[in-house]
């Protein structure tokens, strides 16, 4: 058996060889930053990398030092960050725009102009498609498929939506397939819901009852609109389903990988543990944990040899002691939580310390990578020889 790689080496190898890396984690843990930092690192080592964020607040743009990013992949100028990337290395970044991805999908997969018009003009579609909690996940899925089919990139790093539960994204393809498989759709596609035919001339008494009930608690107008919405998509269902099952398979391939980004608090790490278990159960390739914003213990970072009393004014001494002790309390709690995660998952996480400044440019992203891996981005030997 090959010796097990260190976690940093395993992630480094994933950056060098895989085609998809998905950064998962609950909101506010620095997932977007981590995704961008990993993408930058792979690009500097010579790969053509696209990082795609789903976050509507455009955080990726901030951390790449840009004001805006759009739904189109945009090349990031790496020359601002010496040394130059290894040969062939380049970085693109984009933000997933849910509404325009949805529109593009409709345009691409509808059989004719009429079908297209029915969807794009539907009231439900126009107002709700982008505002839904789930539509981010579905569109991310569709986009991922589209991006991996594009040969411009060796590696796509996908940042996932900031949900409370990291699992929501993983389950999106299954949920969609499940829905498209059920009779709900057929029920909605029945003629008595379709506009103009809402006569309630339902064959069976049960059917009539169901309609009456539905009217009472949802309103027939609502159901009718919804029915039209589902009906408008009729021509696309098979495509949706087929692509959802492709994503389902894609996310389980050995060329894909998941990186779990978590905060260092005991609670966040408990969630990371749960996520790891589910990922393993689902047969999805886990690569590494990145525990971000770890509070370090200053006493472990600097050594003091002399043991005599320091010459410090009394009031200042009290404040200094308090400051050190509070930071140590936090550091200790986090160390224990990380150790527990390690025992439970048998995975050693990469630790990134809490920084005293914000990351909002390429330099900051490179620093993030360096801190996580303990070294600058590797440069492939073959490239060095070729030069």
């Amino acid at each position, binding site marked *: 058996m090959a010796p097990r790689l260190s976690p940093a080496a395993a992630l480094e190898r994933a950056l060098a060889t895989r085609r998809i890396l998905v950064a998962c984690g609950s909101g506010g843990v620095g997932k977007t930053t981590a995704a961008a930092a990993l993408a930058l690192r792979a690009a500097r080592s010579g790969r053509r990398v696209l990082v795609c964020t789903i976050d509507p607040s455009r955080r990726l743009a901030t951390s790449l030092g840009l004001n805006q990013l759009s739904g189109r992949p945009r090349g990031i100028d790496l020359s601002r960050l010496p040394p130059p990337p290894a040969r062939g290395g380049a970085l693109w970044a984009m933000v997933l725009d849910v509404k325009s991805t949805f529109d593009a999908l409709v345009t691409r997969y509808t059989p004719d102009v009429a079908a297209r018009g029915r969807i794009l003009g539907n009231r439900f579609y126009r107002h*709700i498609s982008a505002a839904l909690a789930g539509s981010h996940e579905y569109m991310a899925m569709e986009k991922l498929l589209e991006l991996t089919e594009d040969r411009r990139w060796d590696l796509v790093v996908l940042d996932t939506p900031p949900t409370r539960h990291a699992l929501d994204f993983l389950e999106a393809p299954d949920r969609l397939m499940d829905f498209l498989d059920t009779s709900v759709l057929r029920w909605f596609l029945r003629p008595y819901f379709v506009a103009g035919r809402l006569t309630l001339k339902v064959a069976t008494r049960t059917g009539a009852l169901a309609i009456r009930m539905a009217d009472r608690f949802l309103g027939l107008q609502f159901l009718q609109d919804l029915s039209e919405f589902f009906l408008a998509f009729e021509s696309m269902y098979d495509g949706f389903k087929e692509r959802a099952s492709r994503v389902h398979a894609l996310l389980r391939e050995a060329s894909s990988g998941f990186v779990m980004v978590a905060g260092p608090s005991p609670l966040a790490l408990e969630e990371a543990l749960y996520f790891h278990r589910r990922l393993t159960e689902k047969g999805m390739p886990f690569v590494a944990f990145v525990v971000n914003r770890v509070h370090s213990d200053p006493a472990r970072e600097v050594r003091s040899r002399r043991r*005599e009393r320091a010459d*410090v004014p009394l009031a200042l001494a009290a404040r200094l002691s308090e400051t050190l002790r509070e930071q140590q309390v936090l550091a200790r709690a986090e160390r224990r939580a990380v150790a527990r995660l390690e025992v439970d998952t048998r995975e050693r996480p990469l630790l990134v310390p809490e920084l005293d400044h914000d990351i909002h440019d390429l330099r900051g992203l490179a620093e993030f990578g360096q801190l996580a891996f303990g070294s600058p981005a590797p440069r492939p030997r073959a490239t060095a020889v070729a030069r």
Partner: protein
Amino acid sequence: MLLDSLFSRRLVFLTGKGGVGKSVVGAAVAVAARERGKRVLLVEVAAPLEAARLLGGPPSGGRETEVLSGLFTVNLDPAAVMDEYVRHVVKLEMFTRRILESPIYRRFFAAAPGLEELMVLGKIMVLEEARARFSQKPLWDLIVVDAPATGHGLAFLKVPLAASAAIPAGPIGHNVRRVLALLRDPRRTALVVVAVPEEMAVVEAVQFHGLAKEELKIEPAAVVLNACHERRFTDEDEAEVLRLTTEGATGDVERDVPLPAALRAARRQIRRRKLTRFYRDRLRRTLDAPLVSLPFLFREAVGLDEVRLLAGKLEAA
């Protein structure tokens, strides 16, 4: 001051980017209201563990549970709320059961766009309107809602707006407009934006504030800046810390407190409190809502003691 303004309404809606401590702030607002003798309901959405973790007591379920005297928690699970709605509208047990047990109903609910959000908001409206049977006084003096961090904090609140345009008629459309009116009424609802002193959280808070005003037509009542590092060292102290560091001073400040480590900790504290000041100033400059700071807590875990401490800070603000 802040609380007087918030508590003049009966619905407080907390929102902000994930990880800013919305749940903790929500629990602190609820505890502060309870200390004032109010009967408070803390609402979680599909997150039954947060309040229990912060306040003690069992995980919150679909029924209001009293975790401290006068303070209740409830967890709104969208599917359960929908079931309750069906039971309410369809009063016959036999029919209700038939509907609720139907797989079509389950899957329809999971797939119908925006229905989950609407149901939860509708339930919150029902809670706000609930009256005691005899006195006809409001059942809850205050309802604190920890809005879910799905997508953008705003996505949740945007649903009624989108739905109101998409569903012009029928019971759903009617209720959606009532929900929207409740959220927009500054005498009934206070929207509180929670942030932390960090670039991305602050950018998002500013964006959110703007969107709330322009798109939703809701004026945020306050901004809570959580996890602040406040000034601890005087200017002379800071100069001394710098001098001692440059000198490479050693020795122990006291037992188990080596000076070099303490100096490092102190410089870290100073940098963070400067960052706090920087972002607080930026929020003050850009937003016109009152801003309240809560301290960063150096604790192993955050529980009732910590929530009480924050409630005290809110009361003093």
